[in-house]
């Protein structure tokens, strides 16, 4: 006889890698997938446990400021913004300052086409969002300088 385990039904967020076959299947059938990203690397756009994104099938090529879901060589699934397009892509989280170059198109899985924030679904074509992408990207040097300053002041006040 098999070892008995209490029957379980859980309504929970299942890990992305656990459900990746299902996600890929949905996308291949032209369907969309909604999920809540984990982590803080896409702040302030995406707040962990609050906001969610809608993934759509991947286009033939990604463009600058696109937000793809991709798989790193180490197997981890990442949702970061394309900040440079060449033979490969360079991606970076909105809350990060170090770009990740050398990403190939075959590593890309899906593209965010809208996101839900405060109960509102915002398409990535919305003018406000497009402005945010550009402003946030080009202000990163200033933000980095500001963050270093704040950290320095905190250390001085301790």
């Amino acid at each position, binding site marked *: 006889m098999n070892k008995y385990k209490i029957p*379980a*039904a*859980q309504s929970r967020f*299942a890990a992305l890698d*656990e*459900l990746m076959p299902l996600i890929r299947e949905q996308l291949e059938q032209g369907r*969309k997938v909604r999920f809540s990203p984990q982590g803080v690397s896409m702040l302030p756009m995406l707040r962990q446990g609050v906001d969610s994104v809608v993934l759509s099938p991947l286009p033939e090529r990604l463009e600058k400021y696109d937000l793809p879901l991709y798989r790193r060589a180490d197997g981890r699934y990442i949702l970061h913004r394309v900040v440079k397009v060449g033979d490969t892509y360079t991606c970076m989280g909105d809350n990060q300052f170090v770009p990740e170059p050398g990403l190939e198109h075959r590593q890309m899985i899906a593209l965010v086409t809208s996101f839900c924030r405060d109960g509102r679904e915002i398409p990535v074509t919305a003018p406000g969002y497009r402005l945010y992408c550009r402003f946030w990207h080009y202000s990163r040097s200033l933000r980095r300088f500001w963050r270093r300053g704040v950290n320095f002041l905190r250390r001085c006040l301790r």
Partner: protein
Amino acid sequence: MKVKGNYALRQVAKTWVVMPLGQATLDLDGILTLNETGALLWKTLEQGGDREAMIRALTGEYDVSPERAGADVDRFLGKLADAGVLEE
């Protein structure tokens, strides 16, 4: 009590997932996942089985007493009802 027609059980790697059907967007947040015994009970329900059939399915497949299986089936059905995937 039976499973609503717009849900289907799918095995994805080692996880059993209750898939909502006919939706253009699959919402992974709060998706219902089952373990092996939960999947067995779901399949029994899908085939039109009642509470007694679910208890028989558990005691037939696993080393568990009918009393304990009955209590676990009730708890499992409660969770499915809370998730809104059952209908009378």
